[in-house]
């Protein structure tokens, strides 16, 4: 039991919690506010890197470093939001994708700051309970994930949630009702991106060493496929989707099924290939995912 609680299972569950939170935040951005964020990993990576830099190089206390990382991510996303959020969906998509690429490039090229591909570390847990540290940390993550789910649930029922929904449904109409839609969207974008940065910071101690290749476009894509598969309009869509993709592939298949070592390097290729296929099939045949309705609204 002792061994189980300190080992791989808890570690995997902690990562699942991080990704479930990211998918839920994407659900908020995409389904509630209609923001097509294809740069999730950029905000996540910014939070992770700025937190780790503050902690490792700046010797800032853990909690303060997390708060500062959230603020940095928030400020950057506010500026980005000011630039692109009043453009159309395709511009937002390409703009956020470009942002994530910039973060990835900078994490590689700024060796004086991030150690480049050598990796930045070591990021330790904020406490030391010996073998139980990981378990305690995962429980803290669980609390944050549950809080985020509760917030999502409440928000969708609140007047503010309805305001955001009205903006994503028909922005011109809510403008004519006197709502400053661009401002509201940007505030919500900043807030949710800061939270993405928060979960980036919280993921850093799990990795303990931070490398640029962790913040590649595959992460964004995985979160998107998870949300689309689970059901983008549903509260638990992200949760179901993450379990059905990352949970199934990274943990069940890679740990339960014995894969010969000579095939180990093709497993990620198979994984992303199947993810891509899954995304195509979901969009063609079940546009609202596992939890969603079968039929698509006919928009002509």
């Amino acid at each position, binding site marked *: 039991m002792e061994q189980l609680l300190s080992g791989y299972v808890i570690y995997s569950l902690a990562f699942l919690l991080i990704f479930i939170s990211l998918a839920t935040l994407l659900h908020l951005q995409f389904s509630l506010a209609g923001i*097509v964020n*294809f740069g999730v990993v950029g905000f996540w990576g910014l939070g992770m890197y700025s937190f780790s830099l503050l902690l490792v190089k700046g010797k800032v206390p853990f909690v303060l470093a997390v708060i500062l990382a959230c603020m940095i991510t928030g400020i950057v996303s506010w500026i*980005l939001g000011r*630039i*692109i959020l009043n*453009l*159309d*969906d*395709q*511009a937002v*998509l*390409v*703009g956020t*994708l*470009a*942002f994530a*690429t*910039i973060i990835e*490039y*900078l994490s*590689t*090229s700024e060796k004086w700051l991030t150690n480049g591909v050598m990796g930045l570390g070591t990021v330790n847990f904020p406490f030391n309970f010996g073998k139980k540290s990981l378990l305690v940390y995962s429980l803290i993550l669980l609390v944050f994930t549950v809080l985020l789910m509760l917030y999502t649930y409440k928000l969708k029922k609140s007047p503010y949630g309805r305001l955001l929904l009205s903006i994503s449904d028909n922005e011109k109409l809510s403008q004519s009702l006197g709502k400053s839609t661009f401002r509201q969207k940007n505030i919500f974008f900043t807030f949710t991106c800061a939270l993405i940065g928060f979960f980036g910071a919280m993921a850093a101690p799990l990795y303990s060493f931070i490398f640029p290749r962790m913040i590649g*476009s595959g992460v964004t*894509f995985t979160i*998107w*496929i998870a949300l*689309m598969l689970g059901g983008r309009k549903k509260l638990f869509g992200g949760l179901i989707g993450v379990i059905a993709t990352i949970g199934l592939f990274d943990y069940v298949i890679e740990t339960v099924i014995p894969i010969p070592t000579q095939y180990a*390097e*093709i497993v*990620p*290729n*198979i*994984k*992303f*290939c199947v*993810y*891509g*296929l*899954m*995304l*195509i099939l979901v*969009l*063609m045949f079940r*546009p609202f995912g596992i939890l969603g309705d079968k039929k*698509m609204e*006919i*928009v*002509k």
Partner: protein
Amino acid sequence: MTFSLFTSTALVLGLLEAAPLVLAAIGFTLIFRLNGFTNVAYAENITLGAYFAVIFNSMFGWNFYAAIIPSALLSGLFSVLTYLVIFRPAFKRGVGKTELIILSVGLSFFVRYGSRLIFGNDLFNFTFDNPSYLSAFGIGITSIQLTCIALVVVISLGIYFFIYRTNYGERMRALADNENLAMISGINPTKVSILIWFIAGAAGGLAGVFYGAFSFVSPSLGYNLILIIIMVTIVGGVGSVRGSLAASVGVGIITSAVTLLSKPLYGQVVLLILFIGILKLRKVRI
């Protein structure tokens, strides 16, 4: 480095950089103009073009220039296949513009990692018969590079002529502007669409071949280019073939100038920051 040497180096390297970009941007623009969505899976068209050429050049031992032709045709066919199997059914089902992009991202991952399963994660190089080294404006350049640039000029002029001067080009533009009106005038939308997707795919495949000839062929060749391609088409004015021609040359020269002044990745970073700014300035629908 003196100023004049710097400018000429930036110019030559920029043109080398821009040559494949021009073709890719034209192909991407054609699909965008016709169907009005950002086709991220176009990246894989570029990659596959390069891989097709690798198959003919390295595995069958064909001459590099002979390998260009079948790889252009095959990547054109691949493009038509994606249109018929994925995108046309999606248009018919009424999938929204944003979902179409997500769909194309899914297709892009499927093809990219699928081809990794077939070709592995290795890098490939083309084999050339005795390339000679020439000098242009005091900068070394191989005969292969020079021939590739010449080919790019010829092909892009050909496509340009096709779009703006021929009957089929006119039909395509009519279809892009107003599908219903075009159909009333007796234009067969499926036929014209297949033709356009074929040309776009072939142009993308050729871009991949030339890009591979200038450096090497890797599984992420197309994906690394796609953001720049989208950017070029936006800078050049959305859906305008003329504009993307000019913009690709400009972008190529800017990138190589920034790269000469600093580290290679900075060229990309500066370009992407400029790009986000341009999105705002032009306020265009991509």
